[in-house]
């Protein structure tokens, strides 16, 4: 029924439409949990958030409480945050450093390797009680790519590298900002709810078609501050050229020539005159290390990357990691962080964080209007019975390259969504 009822994909007639039921129905969300979130690789956190042995972060991933931590052998681990005895959370703090985790309910304790190392009154359990089988449980797979830690609850999941497919190229471009290839999550988490279906944020995160109207006040701010906003070339809507590209497995990207400031490494007047030499220094290091071609890509292009299903890496005014988990068909919890090179100077770090806030986040000059747009879409979705379909065919009749304001990359997401959700049809 997903194959027939939720997405129209007719390349011959250049027709692509998404049925709005996919964004309002509870049964769709239930199926997404089973056929998408429990099947794919899902981002949990970054290795830099647990730098030292015993460091931990607690998160909610696919509705499950988990602990991201570094064990005694300095390996990054992910545990399900539930006591093996009665399921109470074994860690109730947001983050910290611990030797282990103790469930306060009956006192079962687990060491930092997740092993059950204390059971009060153990002698009353029968001989069949096997303590060694009651360690903290882990997702079926945990792996990381260049510091980004993912889990999969699917025992049959392919390797993370295979899963990431073409997305790796774009992650690499971000990580290349660091001379040592080591990026770190910077202190301070933006955690906010959006009263919209989670897939709307996927679309919005790399949809450049909305920029001119949704973010006109941001563009004004850029112009007023001295950033040159060129008139779009023929056939374009954006001040610079940019393309949309599918990267396999539902991942996709927009890859744009930069026209705004970049901490690595394009100075704009907002950064202040005093910041010019620092940006120039970063730029010089980049070109010496990577050569002109790659350095130009790192420094003078922006990318908004969606790693299917719910991770967004935006490398524009700054680098942000953004991930979101649905709570209901019309509600998601969003978490966003800033990412920067570990060896960044204090001055460069300041520029990065300041530049972040020109656009991104709940108090930025652009993100609030995205939230308003998505919540407005969700309210309009109440008409889904009268107006069932959303058209998503921009660029379909074009040969070759697709623009960032076309919708190939959105379609790539939806086609993977359809592919995975259709497994339910096959199961029936």
């Amino acid at each position, binding site marked *: 029924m997903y194959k027939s009822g939720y997405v129209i994909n007719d390349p011959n007639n250049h027709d692509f439409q998404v049925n709005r039921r996919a964004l309002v129905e509870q049964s769709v969300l239930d199926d997404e949990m089973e056929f998408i979130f429990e099947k794919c690789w899902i981002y949990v956190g970054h290795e830099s958030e647990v730098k030292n042995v015993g460091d931990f972060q607690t998160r909610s991933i696919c509705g499950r409480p988990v602990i991201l931590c570094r064990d005694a052998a300095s390996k990054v681990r992910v545990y399900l945050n539930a006591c093996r005895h009665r399921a109470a959370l074994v860690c109730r703090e*947001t*983050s910290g450093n611990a030797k282990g985790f103790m469930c306060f309910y009956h006192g079962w304790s687990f060491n930092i390797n997740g092993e059950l190392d204390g059971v009060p009154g153990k002698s009353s359990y029968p001989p069949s009680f096997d303590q060694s089988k009651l360690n903290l449980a882990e997702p079926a797979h945990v792996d990381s790519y260049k510091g980004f830690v993912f889990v999969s609850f699917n025992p049959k999941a392919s390797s993370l590298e295979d899963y990431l497919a073409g997305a790796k190229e774009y992650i690499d471009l971000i990580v290349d900002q660091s001379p040592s290839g080591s990026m770190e999550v*910077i*202190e*301070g*988490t*933006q*955690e*906010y*709810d*959006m*009263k919209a279906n989670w897939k709307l944020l996927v679309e919005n995160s790399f949809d450049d078609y909305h920029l001119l*109207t*949704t973010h*006109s*006040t*941001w563009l*004004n*701010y850029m112009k*007023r*501050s001295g950033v040159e906003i060129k008139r779009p070339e023929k056939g374009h809507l954006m001040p610079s050229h940019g393309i949309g590209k599918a990267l396999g497995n539902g991942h996709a990207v927009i890859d744009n020539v930069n026209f705004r400031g970049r901490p690595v490494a394009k100075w704009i007047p907002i950064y202040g005159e005093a910041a010019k030499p620092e940006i120039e220094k970063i730029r010089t290091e980049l070109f010496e290390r990577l050569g002109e071609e790659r350095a130009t890509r790192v420094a003078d292009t922006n990318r908004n990357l969606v790693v299917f299903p719910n991770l967004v890496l935006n490398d524009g005014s700054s680098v942000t990691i953004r991930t979101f988990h649905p709570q209901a068909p019309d509600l998601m*919890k969003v978490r966003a*962080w*800033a990412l920067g090179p570990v060896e960044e100077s*204090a001055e460069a*770090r*300041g520029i990065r*964080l*300041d530049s*972040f*806030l020109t656009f991104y*986040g*709940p*108090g*930025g*000059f652009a993100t*609030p*209007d995205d*939230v*308003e*747009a998505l*919540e*407005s879409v969700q*309210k309009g979705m109440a008409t889904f019975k009268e107006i069932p379909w959303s058209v998503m065919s921009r660029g379909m009749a074009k040969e070759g390259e697709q623009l960032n304001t076309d919708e190939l990359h959105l379609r790539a997401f939806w086609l993977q969504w359809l592919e995975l959700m259709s497994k339910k049809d096959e199961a029936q």
Partner: protein
Amino acid sequence: MTNNNLLNISRERIEDFLFLEAALLDEWRLDDWLLLLAENFTYQVPSNDAPGSIAAKALFMIADDKKRTEERVVRLKDRNAHAEFPHSRTRRFISNVRILERTDIDSTHSKVKIQANFTIHRFRRNDDIRTFVGQYHNELLITEQSIHIIHRKAILDAYELGSMGLVSFIL
């Protein structure tokens, strides 16, 4: 310089100023509000999990200098600031005002660090009431005739911004 020559700075005077500021913001008289800001003004809202950090080292939600605050006001007055169009209705309650530290620059100028609690309700048509609870950590520049804000930090108490959603109006 004897104490007799210094400015009389009472809590009541600080409260009157904070109440005036709250009224200007609730009434969206943002240009009038700008007149209350000192030259080297900053406005900050830290991320909920980093309330004690500094903006040069940690990701905040807002870390404006005066110029950016002026641009924020330009944006908020534009009907294309969609998150605040139509403008939210807000109602602020300021309480527990405390003067923490006083530095007398000379006999006519003093800097004062204050804290005050706030509750701000935000109302939007077709939306839930969103309530922001927290504390201001402000620094004020005071003369006999005037008070200007040097630093204005709004620290939210919640562990996450969560259902507050946005800080799209001036907290």
